[in-house]
Every structure is written in C-alpha cells, then in structure tokens.
C-alpha cells in the first residue's frame, strides 16, 4: 500500500499543472464550504460576544416585588446615580422610570383631529441626565438634556429615533413641540441608537425633575448601571445597600439573561444558500476530476499495459488510479480549506471580528476533498483495470 501511494504520488508529480487545474473545482468548492461555515461561526460568536460584553457590564436595580407599592416608591432615592457612581467598578448610572399614564396620547400637533395619523401612545420615560451614558445611547440630532433642565423642571423631551420618524419630527433645529396629553414639550434631541435598552427608541424621554412636577413621579422606578467588565456581580451586591442603607432588601439588582434566540438564528438563510453553492461547486469539481482521470487512463494505456505485463493485478491498477484521484482531491481539499480559512481571517480583519471556526472544519474540509476525489476516481479506475496487458505491445509511448 505504501508503495502504491508512492506510485500514485509519482503519477501526480509527473503532471503538476494538470493536477492543479483538475483540483481547481474542488479547491473552490471546499474554500466556499469552509469560508461559509467559518464566517457563520465567526458572525455568531461576534453577536454572542458582543451580547456577553453588554451583559457582563450591566446591572439594573429595581424595587423588590414583595415590597408593596408604597415601600417600592420610596426605596430608590432621587440621588441614586450619585450614590451608585461612588461604588468601585461603576462606569455610569442613571435612573429610568416608565410612567404609567394610560390615555395620554402623544401628538405632534395641537389640533385634535379624529382622522389624524400622528397620534400615538408611546411609553413615557422619566430619566436622569446620566442615563444616556448608562444605556450607551447616542443622539441622532439635537442634544440630550442636563441636570439644569431637570432642576428647573423644564418642559423638554428627547424622542427615541423610531418614534421621531413616526411623528415626522426628524429636524429638531426648529425646536418642534410634541403634546403629551394637553401639555406641550419642546423636543431638543432625537436618540439614534441605544445599545442597552433598545425600547427607548420608541419612547418619549423627559428629565425626572420634570416628571416629578408634571406627572407626579414619586420616586425613580429603576437604576440602570454600567460597570467595568467583571465588576457586575460586585456592583449588584453593593448597589441595594448604597441606594437604601436602611432597607437594602427592598431592592433587587438584576443582570439580564442571555437571549438564546439571537445565538441560534444567525443568518441561517444565507448560510444555506452558500452551502448549496459549495455543494454544486464540489459536484462540478468531482466531474472535472473524473473527466481528467478518464483522459489520463486513455493516455496511459501503454503504461497500464506495461504494469500489467510486469505483474500488476487488475485490483492494484484500479487502486492506483483511485489513489491518484483521491490524492488530487485531497490536494484540492487542503488548498481549498486553506483559502477558506484565509477568507474567514480576511473578513475578520476587515470587519474587526475575531475569527472563530470549529476545529474540525479545516481537516474536515481537506478530508471531504479526498472523498470527492475518491468518488470521482471510481469509474476511471474501473476503466483502467479493464486494460489488457497486450495493450503494452500495441500502444506507442
């Protein structure tokens, strides 16, 4: 067997250029396969790792459920951001309270038009000025409010980006107003992105000072804390005590659970499409190898006849050609797997992603190439084994 592999290798070495061209189909097929699977795991890992990073640095402090409404309302003090930020490992903290005001529509115009399409009932959120940093938000236009707005109880709001689009209020330079119930508020900014609490994009956000006077907010309903990586557990343990030293058990610190759905559903459609393409390319590659091997058999009738006259059995001739074909496939598989890995690393470099690949993908790709070659070699090998030794007498070359 070792001898036959040697003979097969020699047969391939004799026709290097042809071997390269023959293996091309397998190279492309395996490269596409490895790149597709590699990019899928890379993108999946990126989404997960991004989420993990957010989750590992996020703590939300809420009133404990069993506390009862009165107790809960008084548990979080108004100076919560200040108190929490004194803790080690806290990057930013802000209060966030969703106001429960049923029947308070938000309109872009003062006219009550029963047919108007600009009436919506978005969530109304009172937030401390520090919240923007704590939720990693960014502004699309205008500005965020500051402590001064809150202290003066100014009638200003910041709209979530999606809500602003629904209300056709993208341009804040004109200081447009929105009506929350009957009261007018000046829109000073529009949120573009919010990494931690994406629901804010649909909300009207107003300073908590304003909410206290205009909507009777008694106390903040939650504190959103951003911590250093790894500090979340520590902060979660200390925050209730820092916020309510007399009754720390009235508060709970929560860390978000993983969204399994995101992990599972990573561009499954595109992946299937590319895998199908890879399979088709591999099939074409296999036909290419079979074709070239068949031509090779016809060209080497003399050599086959000679080997037969020297004592090669039909079986060993068939095995020789199967091996050659498998080696061409393996060669294409190795090259294709290497190219596929390169593609994944290249995309990772360009997009600043960490390339993540299953450890079996590269050797598996190379091996699949060999299997494709082996299958492609079956018919040519059978043809070769049918050559009679007499052929050596007649053939030239």
């Amino acid at each position: 067997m070792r001898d036959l592999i040697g003979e097969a290798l020699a047969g391939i070495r004799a026709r290097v250029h042809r071997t390269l061209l023959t293996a091309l189909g397998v190279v492309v097929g395996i490269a596409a396969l490895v790149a597709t699977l590699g990019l899928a795991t890379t993108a999946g890992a990126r989404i997960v790792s991004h989420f993990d990073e957010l989750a590992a640095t996020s703590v939300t402090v809420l009133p404990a459920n069993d506390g009862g409404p009165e107790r809960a309302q008084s548990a979080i003090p108004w100076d919560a951001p200040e108190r929490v930020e004194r803790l080690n490992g806290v990057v930013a903290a802000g209060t966030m309270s969703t106001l429960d005001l049923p029947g308070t529509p938000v309109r872009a115009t003062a006219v009550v038009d029963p047919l108007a399409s600009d009436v919506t009932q978005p969530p109304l959120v009172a937030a401390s000025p520090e919240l923007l940093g704590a939720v990693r938000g960014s502004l699309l236009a205008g500005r965020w409010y500051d402590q001064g707005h809150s202290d003066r109880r100014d009638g200003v709001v910041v709209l979530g980006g999606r809500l602003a689009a629904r209300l056709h209020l993208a341009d804040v330079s004109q200081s447009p107003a929105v009506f929350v119930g009957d009261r007018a508020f000046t829109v000073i900014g529009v949120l573009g992105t919010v990494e931690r609490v994406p629901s804010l994009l649909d909300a009207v956000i107003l300073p908590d000072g304003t909410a206290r006077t205009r909507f009777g907010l008694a106390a903040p309903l939650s504190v959103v804390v951003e911590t250093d990586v790894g500090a979340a557990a520590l902060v979660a343990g200390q925050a209730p005590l820092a916020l309510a030293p007399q009754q720390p058990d009235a508060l709970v610190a929560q860390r978000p659970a993983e969204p399994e759905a995101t992990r599972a559903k990573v561009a499954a459609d595109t992946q299937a499409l590319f895998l199908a393409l890879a399979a088709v390319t591999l099939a074409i590659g296999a036909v290419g190898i079979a074709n070239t091997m068949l031509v090779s058999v016809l060209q080497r009738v003399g050599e086959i006849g000679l080997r037969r006259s020297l004592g090669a059995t039909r079986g060993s001739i068939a095995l020789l050609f199967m091996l050659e074909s498998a080696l061409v496939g393996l060669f294409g598989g190795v090259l294709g797997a290497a190219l596929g890995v390169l593609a994944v690393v290249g995309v990772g470099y360009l997009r600043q992603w960490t390339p993540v690949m299953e450890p079996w993908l590269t050797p598996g790709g190379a091996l699949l190439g060999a299997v494709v070659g082996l299958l492609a070699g079956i018919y040519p090998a059978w043809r070769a084994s049918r050559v009679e030794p007499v052929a050596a007498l007649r053939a030239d070359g």
Partner: protein
Amino acid sequence: MTPLVELRGVSRVFPAVRPVTALRPTDLTIRAGEWVAITGRSGSGKSTLLQILGLLDRPTSGSYRLDGEDVSGLSDRARTRLRSSRIGFVFQSFHLMAHRSALENVTVALLYHGCPRRQRVARAAEALDRVGLADRAGAMPTTMSGGERQRVAVARALSIHPQLLLADEPTGNLDSATAEEVLSLFVRLNDEGQTVLMVTHDGQVAARARRRVEITDGTVREVTVDA
C-alpha cells in the same frame, strides 16, 4: 532436462462472425539458454505467439508447459503472478515513464515482483549495471538516447532475473547504430546464459539469433541456420 517452453498443438482463434485463426496448431520447444528469433511479416501471427508465450493471452487449444508446469489453463491472477516472477518483457516502444528516473523505471518491475522495498534500489542498480548504464541511473528518459532508453527497458526486464526474456521488435524504433548497441547487449546476455525469445520482422536482426523460427499465415517453421 525439462524444456523451458513446450508448446503442444497450441492455436489461437479470435472469435468473430467469421472467426480469425491467428495461430494454427503449433508445436514449439525452447530450452533454457537458447536465443530464438521469431520472424514473419506483420499479420503472420508472431505477435499472437509472443503473447501466448508471455502469458498475456491464453491459447484456444493445446497445452503450454513453462518449466514443466502446465500454464495454459491458469486464471488471470495466477498468470499475472507468473509473469511478474518468471518473464521479462522488452517492448518496441520502450514504455518508460517519462517523469521517473531510469532507476525508478526499473524499480517498478521489482515492486510488482514483490521485492522488499530495501532491496529494490540495489537490485535495480545491479540490473542497470548489467546493461552498462550504471552511471545513468539518475537520468530522466527524456534526456537519454533511444538506445539508452531501450537498455533501461532491458534492465527493467532483467531486474527480476526472469527465466524467459521476451522482446517484441526491440530494435523497431531504433536506427541501425543504436540497434546494434541493443543487439550486442542481447548477445552478451545470451552468452551469460539468459534465455531470449525475440520477435522481429528484420532478417538482419534475426540473423544474430542462435536459432530462427519463421511464422507464415499462422504456421511455424524452423529455419536452419548455417553454423
């Protein structure tokens, strides 16, 4: 002494709508150490005879004893094994593998002969030495002359120490000077005791053999050679 080759009533008919008789019932005896030339025009049946003698083909009737053993009824596999151990072939078109060195071309025969890997190179080198190409062992066939190539092919046949060396028009692709080079090699090998059976249509080549057999329309006839 048992003859090396003993054909009794051997014939070969190729089946067709009108069957073609390539070889009429033939008796032929070759003793070890002989050099026999088989002559005849193309289509006379000499290649068929060579194929039967070389165990490449089976006779339609008659018996073939090689070194006393009846081989006419052997299976394909058994004949293959016999070929690799007892018979050396030299073909008109040398059938060297173009991308393998002279030495590697010779080792291929030893591979199928079942020679252990370690001994192969040594035995191949020894065979190349016998044909006077010891210094060309690493050369590629493409860089060799026609005479040298045919001598490599002879070395390949000799490497397994065959009882019978079969040559099919060994000088057919060579000019007269290199043909002489190869023929004198056969003379020397025969002097060393090698049994040689050569098929040729060239009378001058046949004249170098110690014994001539002519074949006409499938019938074999001894030609008396003047001493």
